[in-house]
């Protein structure tokens, strides 16, 4: 898989999360934390879940272990903290993909699932899983937002490429 693809996805990811979080910031707190029967319950918990999984994967790729016990962990109790952590994570993800080369993408990364079971997969598979996983859960958050009466701006890769304000990759 090409290094350029991941570098674009890294920048897209930061751009689209900023868009989504901006829409979430317009929500009254009740709507933000309301249980809506999404897989991870609420907008708040789903956004936390995305962050948790990104940190799990980035830790596995970079060789450190975040203090995460469960995929349903809520490391940030309030929106402002979560938003700041999301921005920090997206900067770290852009940095990770900026340092890639083609050889490294094909290397196998050994890791453990949360239950301790060892596994191994090529780095490019883990990264595409990470970015695809984000889009999946952003789609869930999008439904919960429109159910709250807020329609976020388009979250498509196409709009990222068309946005004159985006960061160049």
């Amino acid at each position, binding site marked *: *898989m090409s290094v350029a693809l991941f570098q674009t996805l890294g920048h897209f990811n930061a751009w689209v999360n900023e868009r989504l979080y901006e829409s979430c910031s317009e929500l009254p707190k009740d709507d933000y934390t309301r249980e809506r029967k999404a*897989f991870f319950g609420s907008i708040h918990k789903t956004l936390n879940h995305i962050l948790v999984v990104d940190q799990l994967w980035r830790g596995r790729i970079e060789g450190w272990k975040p203090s995460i016990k469960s995929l349903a962990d809520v490391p940030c109790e309030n929106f402002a903290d979560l938003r700041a952590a999301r921005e920090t994570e997206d900067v770290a993800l852009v940095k990770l993909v900026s340092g890639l080369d083609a050889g490294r993408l094909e290397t196998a990364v050994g890791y453990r699932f949360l239950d301790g079971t060892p596994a191994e997969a090529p780095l490019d598979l883990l990264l595409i899983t990470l970015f*695809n996983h984000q889009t999946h*859960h952003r789609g869930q958050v999008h*439904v919960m937002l429109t*159910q709250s009466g807020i329609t976020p701006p388009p979250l498509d*890769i*196409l709009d990222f490429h068309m946005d004159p304000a985006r960061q160049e990759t």
Partner: protein
Amino acid sequence: MMLDHVRDFARYNSWVNRRLYAACAQLSDEDYRKDRKAFFHSIHNTLNHLLIGDRIWLARLAKTDHGVKRLDEILYDDFAALRSAREAEDERLERYVDGLDGAQLASILSYTTMAGPVGALPVATILSHLFNHQTHHRGQVHAMLTQTNVPAPPLDLLYYAIEKAGQGRN
């Protein structure tokens, strides 16, 4: 390399659509069509929209007329017909990416947008948009499914890769 990626992703796409449709097949007609205030309202309308998006892009890539008038058009009002069309579209997408070479993937495609103006993007960018667009709306359908009594299946790419590799580990 990028060609391998789009070919793998097309196969994941077929696999994950089969999973999602198998879950949707268990819904009552009422739950399937209920307006749940998603961007395209219901599970039925969102699945139709996904098929429309793919048809538009595959037609542009093949330089044929997609014939779509609106992004919220209902191509198939019947679930069984929509499911067959989805399977056919996914096979078509697999065949399309299998026939690509590196030069075509890097080439710039000019197209007319639904609103009229002409756009131009590398084929690789268009495919990455198409796949991401699918995942986004499948995420919406997933959120609507968990609001029903039908279990929503895991749709992660890693599950597909593990199943393909035959490791059988979640």
